[in-house]
């Protein structure tokens, strides 16, 4: 269970490289036993944030607290934090056993104790029998498991994972996602996970932190992030979206393409320009005469579970997911129920 103590806390953390500001005034806390994912496109600052927590990078401004204490001056080798690096960073001059035992050997732990712990780790990552193998001879997925074992054997408070599944193929990645999640629950360790893959973030995390341009865009649990994106960036980054520039006429009524649509959002200024977000699966295809909008099917792609269609109305090309196919050229009507219209402040005006 996630405990309600703040294990790690970032307060007003900023970091600038040359002229680019990688992190801008980040405030975030991470609770004990939480699985937190930092999600964002490349260059959004997520890796920098992870490296600051790991101690490989420092903050220009702000504080990083670990159990309430500032750890700015604690070098990485004295932090109770371990890292699984992007390309694993395994030591190719050592075999599997010695790679995993590396941290324990440094602590001058008795040999039999090391052997016991390494053995337990190998079981945990399902790599028993590979002790004497060179790490170069392992497949990507196996190297990945060794990298995780090498970090976890030190029994850290926090495990940092920097896009650890990036180099694996899709099927293996899905498997490892589930395994990582169950390992985390089994061991009760806090995981901080960096990825640019939104599906991965939604599958594994207790909390997702969406980042862009060095700023946190939204923090929340996966369902909330998906269902209630706070702005157009989050909506676009998490899943696919139709994003339309519109106006909020008054509470529960918005306007797009000069046409009024009832919605459920409130609390905007009268006639405030807003971004209106509609998920493709929320656009319903109906008969031409009964839709709120009418358009023509421009393209159809079969995606396995559903069809993805582009439906061109007078002013906008809608991306629509539907289980029934309409041939290209068909005139159709489109309807969106008020609950599925998400209104967001224009970017920049949070």
């Amino acid at each position, binding site marked *: 269970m996630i405990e309600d103590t703040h294990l790690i806390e970032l307060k007003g953390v900023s970091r600038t490289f040359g002229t680019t500001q990688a992190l801008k005034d980040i405030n975030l806390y991470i609770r004990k036993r939480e699985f937190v994912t930092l999600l964002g496109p490349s260059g959004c600052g997520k890796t920098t944030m992870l490296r600051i927590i*790991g*101690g*490989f990078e420092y903050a220009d401004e702000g504080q990083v607290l670990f159990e309430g204490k500032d750890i700015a001056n604690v*070098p*990485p*080798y004295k932090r109770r*934090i*371990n*890292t699984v*690096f*992007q*390309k*694993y*960073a*395994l*030591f*190719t*001059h*050592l075999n599997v056993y010695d790679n995993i035992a*590396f*941290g324990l050997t*440094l*602590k001058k732990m008795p040999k039999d104790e090391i052997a016991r712990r390494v053995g337990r780790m190998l079981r945990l990552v399902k790599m028993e029998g590979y002790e004497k193998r060179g790490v170069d001879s392992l497949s990507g997925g196996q190297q990945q498991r060794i990298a995780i074992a*090498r*970090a976890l054997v*030190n029994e850290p408070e926090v495990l940092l994972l920097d896009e650890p599944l990036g180099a694996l193929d899709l099927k293996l990645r899905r498997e490892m996602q589930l395994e990582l999640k169950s390992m985390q629950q089994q061991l009760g360790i806090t995981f901080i996970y960096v990825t640019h893959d939104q599906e991965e973030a939604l599958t594994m995390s207790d909390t997702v932190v969406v980042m862009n341009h060095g700023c946190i865009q939204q923090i929340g649990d996966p369902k909330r992030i998906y269902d209630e994106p706070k702005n157009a960036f989050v909506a676009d980054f998490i899943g696919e979206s139709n994003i339309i520039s519109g106006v909020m006429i008054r509470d529960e009524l918005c306007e797009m393409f000069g046409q009024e649509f009832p919605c459920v959002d409130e609390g905007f200024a009268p006639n405030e320009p807003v971004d209106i977000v509609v998920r493709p699966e929320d656009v319903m295809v109906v008969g031409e005469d009964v839709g709120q909008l009418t358009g023509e099917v421009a393209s159809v792609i079969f995606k396995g579970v559903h069809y993805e269609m582009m439906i061109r109305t007078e002013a906008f090309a809608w991306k629509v997911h539907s289980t029934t196919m309409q041939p290209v050229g068909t005139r159709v009507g489109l309807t969106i129920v008020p609950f599925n219209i998400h209104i967001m402040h224009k970017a920049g005006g949070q």
Partner: protein
Amino acid sequence: MRKTLRGVYLGLILFFLYSPIAVMIVLSFNASRSRAKWGGFTFDWYVRLTQRSDILQALWVTLTVAVIATVLATIIGTGAAIGIQAMKKRPASLILKVSYLPMTMPDIVTGVSLMLMFVFVNVPLGYWTMVMAHITFDTPYVLFSVLPKLRQTDSNLYEAALDLGCTPMQAVRKVILPEIMPGVITGALLSFTMSLDDFIISYFTSYTDKNLSMVIYSAARKGIEPSIYALSTIMFLVVLALLIVINKRGALENVS
């Protein structure tokens, strides 16, 4: 047909490259002092070599200078590579540019410039000035053998070591060094070969102590004595052996 023609061409090139060497080796076993007549097989010139105290002395100088220079160049150069890898782009590229200088400058300019400096600061030209000069031209070879190896290794390796509890010193000793060892050894072998082989820079930076190349040079100017052929044959075989070792390590490809 095409292959035969090409083979013949390569054969001719090899003939051009090796006939002088072959002649030299044959003459080192020639009992006759004449270069044009075969007077029977003999080891006399090799025996005579052992009686030439100037050559034995030069051999000693050559070997010890090469060993000392190689050890120091390897330490300094490997450290340099590790440091440069961790530096920001600008200072790193500045150091690399300066490192190219001794490699691109003609040996004669390097030799003359070092000589000028040693004389100007009143260091007598001898054994130790030669050692310093050798370290100077050896170190970049170590640097440029180690650097590619370092670049091949995972960029997070050092951090992974810190992460698992190494101090920076331990991280270099226990992780970085073992990972780049092949490059370090290649660099050491290269600089040893360069040192053994050097003539011009040694010639300008040492006056009292002569290495083998310097002895060969003065011998060649005086007139050829077959014991020099014997010496050349031995040196050729040593370099050949060293190169076979280096090549086994795939170093020729790394360097080129």
